[in-house]
């Protein structure tokens, strides 16, 4: 009995986890990081949550603090932050990583190692390309933390517009490690950057001077940033890669008159066959707005409209894919990956000459099918007065 008691006491003493324990009041919660580079040195801006007093009568504090650190490696830069921060930077809640386009143009590889190697960092945070510097310093209304504001904006944009895209570090690593695919990342920039942008004053007016704007998708080839897609090209990319949750198609149904169809569901499939790429796009839409004189309660008209919309989407998709191929010569759609997975024989033939010859010239057949499943509250189209 004595030995058991002794054993229990020893175990209790050992089970305190004293080597790794971190008290809540000794940690600073890191929510976002922005990485830049200057003269071979990484410059890191780390957004840390500033705990607010529950007493509203006390003076207003900034909801977050930006710490800056420099170092030859990312790890060293983070460590340098600890010189100015009273608390240990706790990275488990990191939700945003902004990589400055300067690094992206040079070599994005250097970013991966630290975040993938470090077990205390979760790899489900979102990665973006920053077109300006000090994006995280911008104060924003509604969402107090710039990181959560950016994250929610990306989610909303992806859900309702389909221009941008959510890319986690895991997704980015898969795109990077996969030899048959190229990296594509969302981007962000600050508009009207002024001296008050990092001040709480920026959120005091009804018309905000400085604000960030989600920009178009950034295209990579290998480990280098090549450029940015246009809005249309971004939607095409997201449509083909099944990343569109909800978007709109605006179609010129008459001279200078437009019709908008809202995408409710969309699915696409890339099918490689005999050295050709077939892309099937199936979309269900609802008419959101129609400024043309169309009889929307006529089944024949709806069918005709579906046909027109389908061929419009087909043309647009073809044009955008060809533009991307021509401008960047980067396989962001993962055509080679699809050939590798579904047509191994062709893969063996094309893999060595993919970018030199095959990717530019491979025939792409698009088969788009748009179904109109609703037309809103109005029975007919917009009947103009004669």
């Amino acid at each position, binding site marked *: 009995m004595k030995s058991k008691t002794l*054993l229990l006491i*020893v*175990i209790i003493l*050992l*089970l305190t*986890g004293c*080597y*790794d324990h971190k008290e809540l009041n000794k940690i600073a919660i890191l929510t976002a990081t922005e990485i830049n580079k200057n003269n071979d040195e990484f410059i890191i801006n780390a957004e840390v949550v500033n705990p607010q007093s529950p007493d509203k009568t006390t003076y207003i504090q900034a909801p977050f603090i930006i710490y800056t650190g420099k170092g030859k490696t990312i790890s060293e830069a983070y460590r340098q932050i600890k010189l100015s921060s009273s608390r240990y930077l706790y990275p488990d809640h990191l939700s945003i990583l902004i990589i400055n386009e300067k690094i992206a143009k040079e070599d994005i590889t250097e970013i991966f190692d630290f975040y*993938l190697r470090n*077990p*205390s960092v*979760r*790899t*489900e945070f979102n990665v973006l390309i920053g077109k300006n510097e000090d994006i995280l310093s911008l104060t924003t209304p509604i969402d107090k933390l710039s990181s959560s504001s950016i994250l929610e904006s990306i989610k909303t944009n992806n859900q309702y517009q389909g221009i941008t895209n959510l890319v986690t570090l*895991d997704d980015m*690593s*898969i795109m990077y*490690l*996969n030899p048959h695919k190229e990296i594509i990342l969302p981007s962000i920039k600050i508009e009207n950057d002024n001296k008050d942008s990092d001040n709480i004053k920026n959120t005091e007016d009804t018309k905000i001077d400085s604000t960030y704007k989600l920009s178009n998708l950034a295209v990579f080839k290998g480990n280098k940033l090549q450029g940015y897609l246009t809005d249309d090209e971004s939607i095409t990319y997201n449509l083909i890669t099944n990343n569109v949750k909800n978007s709109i198609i605006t179609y010129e149904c008459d001279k200078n008159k437009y019709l908008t169809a809202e995408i409710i569901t969309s699915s696409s499939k890339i099918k490689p066959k005999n050295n050709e790429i077939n892309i099937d796009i199936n979309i269900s839409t609802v008419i959101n707005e129609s400024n043309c004189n169309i009889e929307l309660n006529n089944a024949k008209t709806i069918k005709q409209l579906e046909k027109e919309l389908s061929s419009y989407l087909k043309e647009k998709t073809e044009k955008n894919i060809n533009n991307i191929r021509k401008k960047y010569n980067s396989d962001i759609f993962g055509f080679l990956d699809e050939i*590798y*997975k*579904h047509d*191994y024989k062709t893969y063996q033939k094309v893999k060595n000459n993919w970018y030199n010859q095959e990717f530019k010239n491979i025939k792409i057949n698009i088969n788009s099918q748009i179904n109109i499943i609703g037309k809103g509250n109005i029975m007919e189209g917009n009947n103009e007065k004669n």
Partner: protein
Amino acid sequence: MKKISYLELSSIFLVILITFNSGINLFLIKNTSGIDSWLSIIIGYIIGLIFLLLTIYISNYHKELNLFEKNKHLFKDFIGTIINIIISIIFFIIAITLLYNISSFINTQFLYHTPILITMSLLIILSIYCATKEINIIAHISLLLMAINIIMFILCNISLIGNIKIDNLLPFLKTNYLNIIISSLKIACINTLPILIILIIPKEKITNQNKYQKSLIITYIIGTLISLIITLTTISILGIYLTNMYEYAEYMVLKKVKLFGFLERVENIISMKWITETYIYLTLIIYSLTKNIKKKNKNTDNCISIIIGIVLVITTNYVFKNITIFNNFIKNIFIYIIAILFIIYILITTKIIFTKKE
């Protein structure tokens, strides 16, 4: 002495079959068989069926004796002792491998600043304490922990279904056949050869001996399915490139688990499964080694278990100075050491056949 039920026996058997899924199985085969690693798992366990049948055959010889006693009975004292020593050394090596594997996992993922010696000591204290009890108590603990583990395994795999991308398993069967066979042999070696340890429980100690064979076969099928599911989910969720890159790919997948659609960040709780499996396996090995150095005095037996535990920790610390040494050991030496058990199987089976003929 109290007997153990066939369910308890199955739980111990399952532990032996699946514990190496905790960071070793996939690590060993992913570079050789790549996307087709799942096929290596299937073939590996099919090859392993031979050892299962041999185990069942050996268990029927003098049902009242355990493995070490059987050897002494079959080969007489001198050769029997040598064979027992060889088996003990192999079990000891399996134990140090398991101990370092789980300790380094805990240290790299959770307790970065805690010395590995403390992690090892905590695990081994628990195993020693358990190993000083009778086999029926070990079996009770095993059944309880395995029941929890299986529930957790089912729950986490259900929640992972949404993350599975079948495309990540394509193209099918494009890996060199020779590589698949090599990987299968590795799987057969480390997962199925050590099932010899189950013979430490004499068949006579099982309550319902008619179900002995059936329960082992069913457990074997369950073990195969669990290993297959782990491999398939890991590769289909992470993709082969991330799987190849991560040290503990199976654990990285657990980070994506959302229990009941909203409970996130539960990977640490789910990975308790790895710790409990290793703990039962270690307990069983310490118990077996103690049985081999059998003394009739209970207190002496306890002392032997404690000494074995201490030696295990010291040897692990001495042999594996860092994870790279450990990884190289697993890849280049461990398989061959375990493969010696194949010769032991053949020796014992042949001897039993000849003895029966005589």
